[in-house]
């Protein structure tokens, strides 16, 4: 930094400090003397000071004037004052000040008090007067969106919940019906290869692969079975379930034929209870009872290795992969999906249960450190892991920047749609608390609350689509910005990724660079991938950003529509930014396009954000 620039910055800092202290009545006599000396001796200082004062007026206006009204009344008390003003303004403005009207003003002081009383009276009920609307209209806003687990459905050409899958795509029946067991409903379900059941239809006696999401099954014996993906199972009879991987929750009615869940190393039987069974990747089976009682029989190679063990409510047992060892296991209230959670996720129980259910789902994903989910019917969005609701008005949590315009924010189909013309912006603060997911994953720096610990990786994934507008129109931009803690008098926007400003092209825009390197990449970098610029309307783009934090400049690899089987080479690599990441911004502005975002995820590796 040059000496001249340093001096300018120092003066600017000093003026900002003095201006703020002066305006808030906190300036000392010494400070006031310094301020006056600065303003009197340097026209640039005077300009900057005036700028800060005006800026403060705007901030005051922005934050504090929502309820203010300017009220005019028909009182005649200040007639003399106005007459005096009218006379004064006839003279030359620049030369006339200051004018000592002490006597006149003292006389008017009494008038002012009377006017103030009248103003208050009218302010309480301004029926006889009129009012000017407040200048800052605090906008109403809708909330935010994005659906966990929808990703795989879109990328793989499958719709969530089977709703987008045409009948012709389903595997034709190969087996007998599984005892009239029926798929009742799904929540963001993604089915694996093979059999794709549809809500409302009887299930086949064939392996079912629920890659992600939830499925609710009504068994032939009356049991309600909730399956949480990823799970591999087979419904082999009215009360028979073969579970080879994943979690199921069973609610069995009393007085009906018992339910039997067979895992690789255990058999669980019950009647009239609520319990969960989990087969983890290490092939261990965990059974936990919420109500009633079940019996658990350890199995080795399909043969009981021990006598059946009764398991009562609020107890859990774990059977190791060999089926030879059984241990008690800690009971977890949230280890298994309950019917209520399922209902909540479908938005049937209201916003609060919905948020809690979303949080519960996220918390079971240790590699996921941030995500955004939205329920269009409830008009409720949840992000992060603190169950924060964005309801009606986006509000402080999402930090809408244009509240008036964000009142026009529309969200349909579980997507966040933002229109450039409306200049909508959504900020997401990452949860960097010591107990938060990022800290638990070891991503938070020790010296400051930001992501960026050397040697760690953070991945972001989202989908973006131009909904309408001429793709060739160069105006506007839409994309995601990476923000971080600033210590350089800047607002911390390191990188913008998406449809770059004032060019009908995709790419990135950089401002920051590593401290020891020139700002060689400042400005737009167009994406040179064939067929990707400009983005056509209606085409969903998938963006993947992999950030490898290193000592010094970090490496940021950006992929557009990457192959999910093999990532290959990134489309853009930025390697001279020393990034500190603590918040993200989704924004579209200054154009006539309409964009939508969906499935925004932040995770510790590629797999975490491309779950499927």
């Amino acid at each position: 930094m040059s000496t001249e620039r340093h001096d300018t910055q120092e003066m600017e800092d000093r003026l900002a400090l003095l201006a703020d202290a002066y305006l808030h009545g906190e300036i000392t006599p010494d400070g006031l003397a310094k301020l006056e000396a600065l303003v009197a001796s340097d026209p640039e200082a005077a300009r900057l000071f005036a700028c800060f004062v005006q800026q403060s007026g705007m901030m005051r206006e922005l934050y504090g004037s929502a309820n203010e009204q300017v009220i005019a009344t028909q009182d005649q008390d200040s007639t003399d004052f106005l007459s005096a003003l009218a006379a004064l303004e006839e003279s030359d403005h620049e030369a006339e000040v200051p004018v000592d009207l002490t006597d006149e003003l003292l006389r008017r002081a009494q008038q002012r008090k009377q006017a103030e009383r009248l103003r208050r009276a009218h302010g309480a009920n301004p029926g006889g007067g009129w009012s000017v609307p407040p200048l800052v209209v605090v906008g109403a806003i809708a909330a935010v969106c994005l659906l966990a687990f929808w990703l795989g459905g879109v990328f793989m050409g499958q719709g969530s919940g089977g709703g987008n899958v045409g009948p012709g795509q389903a595997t034709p029946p190969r087996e007998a019906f599984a005892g009239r067991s029926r798929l009742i409903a799904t929540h963001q379900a993604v089915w694996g290869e093979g059999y794709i059941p549809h809500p409302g239809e009887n299930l086949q006696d064939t392996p079912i692969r629920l890659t992600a999401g939830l499925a609710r099954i009504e068994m032939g014996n009356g049991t309600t079975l909730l399956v949480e993906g990823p799970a591999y199972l087979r419904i082999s009879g009215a009360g028979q379930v073969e579970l080879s991987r994943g979690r199921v929750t069973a609610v069995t009615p009393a007085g009906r034929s018992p339910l039997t869940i067979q895992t690789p190393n255990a058999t669980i039987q019950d009647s009239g209870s609520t319990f969960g069974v989990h087969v983890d990747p290490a092939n261990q089976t965990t059974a936990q009872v919420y109500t009633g009682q079940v019996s658990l029989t350890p199995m080795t190679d399909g043969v009981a290795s021990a006598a059946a063990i009764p398991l009562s409510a609020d107890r859990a047992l774990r059977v190791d992969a060999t089926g030879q060892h059984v241990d008690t296991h800690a009971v977890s209230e949230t280890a298994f999906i309950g019917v209520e959670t399922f209902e909540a996720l479908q938005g049937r129980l209201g916003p609060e249960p919905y948020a809690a259910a979303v949080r519960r789902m996220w918390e079971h994903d240790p590699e996921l450190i941030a995500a955004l989910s939205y329920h269009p019917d409830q008009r409720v969005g949840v992000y992060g892991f603190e169950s924060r609701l964005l309801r009606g008005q986006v509000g402080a949590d999402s930090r809408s920047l244009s509240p008036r315009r964000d009142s026009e924010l529309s969200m349909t189909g579980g997507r966040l749609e933002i229109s450039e013309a409306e200049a909508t912006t959504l900020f997401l603060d990452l949860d960097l608390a010591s107990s938060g997911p990022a800290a638990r994953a070891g991503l938070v720096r020790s010296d400051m609350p930001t992501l960026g610990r050397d040697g760690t990786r953070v991945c972001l994934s989202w989908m973006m689509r131009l909904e309408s507008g001429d793709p060739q129109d160069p105006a506007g931009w839409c994309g995601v910005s990476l923000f971080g803690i600033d210590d350089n008098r800047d607002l911390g926007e390191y990188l913008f990724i998406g449809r770059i400003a004032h060019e009908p092209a995709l790419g990135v825009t950089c401002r920051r660079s590593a401290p020891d390197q020139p700002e060689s990449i400042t400005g737009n970098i167009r994406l040179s991938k064939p067929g990707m610029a400009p983005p056509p309307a209606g085409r969903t783009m998938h963006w993947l950003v992999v950030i490898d934090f290193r000592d010094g400049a970090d490496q940021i690899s950006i992929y557009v529509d990457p192959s999910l089987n093999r990532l290959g080479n990134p489309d853009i690599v930025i390697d001279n930014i020393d990034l500190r990441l603590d918040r993200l911004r989704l924004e579209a502005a200054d154009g006539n396009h309409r964009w939508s975002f969906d499935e925004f995820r932040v995770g510790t590796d590629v797999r975490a954000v491309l779950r499927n």
Partner: protein
Amino acid sequence: MSVPSDVVVQFLIQRRSRLLGYAWVIVADEHAAEDVFQEVSMAAVRKCDQIQGPEHLDRWVRHAIRLKGLEVRRSRRGKAQLLSPEVLDILEKSWAGGGTATEGDRMDAMRRCIGQLSGPARQVVEMRYGQGMKSQKIADTLGRRVETVYKTITRAHTALRRCIEDRLDTGRGGL
């Protein structure tokens, strides 16, 4: 030629934050500045038949604010540190400028730039300008040193100024 009252109202709405700042620097108290602005607004509407056009209106309102502000200053004399009238005169030229951007544009830029502040900075700014808290109280509330609060406010101000100017100059937002 007089100015219709609705034109006066529109003017006051459009220039409110700037005029408020003008009053604020004279009286060095945000609440007093609000009172000054409000009273002058009332007067401007009532005297609109004596105002002879937009330029005259601008000068009339600013002059009224100045006079009203000076009156308030007298009542606060000895209670506050106030800029001398000579320095206020110097600042007059700066008030007259301000670029070509409308106040609406500036407010939009301000909203967007405030949103870009880091969480802690935004919190301090909100406490300062939204709740009118003194620095010491902000420091106490946040459990920080008052010097840290001053530093945060200073950086927020300079960052906002640059951000706003950048946005108004380039009309660019992606970065």
